[in-house]
């Protein structure tokens, strides 16, 4: 068992020692310039070491996506780890029907949704938390006063106040800059639905952050 794990670690850390299609060893630099699809093909053909390159290529984007959703630095690393573990387990079955990063984002969004659901349940069963947070949350959900928080904190709080189905399109569009098609792919819905939810979410967020937007506009 331990021997197998060591072997896997070595494989994950030695992407540069792999060989190109003509059989010659491929240097790290050459590998890192390869596209996602090429790396995935190598992974599927047994070169598990290329996974490291994919992780390094997307780890910050995944972490920032999760941070946009949860705004907690303590949680996002664990969640990001789980996202990449899931990607590692599923990469062998990847069928190139979408780009790797939308597939990875889909995993991340689904994991985030699960976490949000769990937290909702946990909050439901935690009466102390309920007493402490509901009133506060209600206040925050109504308006966000730019008194002691900076703009980014206010925006984060505003996003947090959005229902999950409106929050995701806003984050993916305005924070990560994905196209409508990519968002539809990540969220597994129609483009029209994405546009509708995005417009609705923005309007809701604008209403929540109205004082901030007025201040910054003056």
């Amino acid at each position, binding site marked *: *068992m331990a021997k*197998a*794990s060591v072997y*896997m*670690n070595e494989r*994950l*850390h030695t992407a540069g020692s792999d060989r190109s299609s003509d059989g010659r060893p491929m240097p790290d630099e050459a590998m890192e310039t390869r596209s996602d699809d090429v790396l995935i093909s190598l992974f599927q053909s047994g070169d598990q070491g290329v996974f*490291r390159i994919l*992780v*390094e290529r997307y*780890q*910050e984007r995944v*972490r*920032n996506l999760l*941070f*946009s959703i949860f705004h907690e*630095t303590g949680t*996002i*690393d664990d969640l*990001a*780890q789980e996202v*990449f*573990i899931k990607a*590692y*387990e599923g990469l062998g079955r990847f069928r190139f029907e979408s780009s790797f990063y939308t597939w990875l984002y889909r995993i991340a969004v689904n994991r985030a949704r699960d976490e949000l659901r769990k937290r909702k349940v946990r909050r439901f069963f935690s009466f102390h938390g309920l007493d402490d947070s509901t009133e506060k949350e209600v206040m925050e959900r109504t308006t966000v006063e730019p008194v002691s928080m900076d*703009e*980014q904190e206010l*925006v*984060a709080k505003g996003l947090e106040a959005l229902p999950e189905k409106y929050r995701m399109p*806003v984050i993916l*569009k*305005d*924070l990560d*800059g994905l196209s*409508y098609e990519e968002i539809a792919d990540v969220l597994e819905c129609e483009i029209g639905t994405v*546009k*509708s939810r*995005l*417009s*609705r979410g*923005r*309007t809701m*967020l*604008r209403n929540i*952050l*109205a004082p*901030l*937007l*007025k201040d*910054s*506009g003056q």
Partner: protein
Amino acid sequence: MSGLSKQELRELLSLAVDGELDAERRTILDEYCASHPEALRELQELRRLKALMGARRTVPPDPFFFTRLSQSLEKSAEESKNLLPFPSKFVPAASAIAIVTFIGLGITIFLQRGPLLQFISETSTEVQQAYEKSILKGSILPLFANVGNDEVLQYALFGTLPLDKESDAALRVDEASAEGYRIEVGLKAEKQNRPAVTVDDLYAEVKPTKVQAIRIDSVLKAAREKIARAGFYAENNALAIDPEITQLNRRVLSRIVGVLEPAQRKRLDRFLREHRALYTVDFDEPPSVDHPPAVPRHATVTGHPRDYIVITPDSLAVTTLAFDVDSLHGQWSVQVHSNMVQMHRKLEEFVRTQARRAPRIPERRTEAPVRIIGEGDVMSIEVGRMFVDEERNLPRLVVAPRGRGETFFRFEMRSGTVPGDSDRLNIRSDLDIEAQVRTQMDSMMKHLQWMQDVQIRELRTRDSLRALREAARRRDATADSLR
């Protein structure tokens, strides 16, 4: 352009923020915003919001992210080798769920115990019925069940044994000729107009002592056990009959004669003549029995292989079979009445069919001197005397009291040989005989001891009575002299 709905305006504004409006829709929005300042203000706020979002705070890079990921992957690989269908970290949760489920199930069963018990009861009844029905389908049933002492006595006297009180069919044995015996099975065999004779009638005639009654009872009990394994009927149309049953009636009667004193034998002979029995007591021959009347024993041998005459619709054979009689009778006891009648009807039909077919099959003989013939509704099996008397390797024990009041028994054993059998079989048979003889000798010794005790008690009682009579006589004499 005041005709834009709130939703349409919202979507146009959102598209405008993303720069996704085509020229036509941009014109529409521009014209709308020109006439609606609040729409223009909303567009500006949305652009400001997007700018704020774009300038979001990002998390600092984590240089050890992949190191920790590879450790997590290693752990995940170990967990994937876990035999449980879930990660080991969920074991406590799974245990808790299992306990809650168990308790919940227990409470549910407790609350629903009434309907559950009813369900189990109904199910067990159904199973019992299915079991009973399955017995009748293809299983082996004893021909003679619930045979009592009265039936055994009637069989000894008349050679007729009804299959069952409810059945019209019976089995009858007869010493057909000097060459052999005949076993008849069918309706005709039952239609012998014989008077019913009971053991009480016999006792009333011969007036046996208590000891004699015990010995006669033991003879009848042993005969009951032999009758229980004398015949079997299989649902798949096969009949197995023990050829020894041909001699059983005479042997039973001989043993009863052997128990009785000469005066009682005369009374028994009169009893047999009055009831037109098949046998009479032969006073020329000293009474001899195959087995000494033994003290009743409860141990019975079941499953001991014996030679049976087996009759199927198209074959006749003599073969060695071993029946577990106790088990078969146990099954018989769970039969319902309707099933018994059904079985007997099937057997009667089988016998009738055999009786009709037998005359047309003249070659229905086995290597043993056994053949089957038919007449009317009765199927007859002729068994050669040689087959029963000589070819059977059964011990023939003759035990007779030497004289009245003597407590000594003459013991004689005659063992036949089995033609064609190996020496090994003969040796085994001799060992069996020896074991049987030892058992019987033990029984006899116990019985003799018991008889001595009885006699001593009788003598003491007699002495006591004599003494009492003497005392009474003296008292009367004294009284007379006083007068």
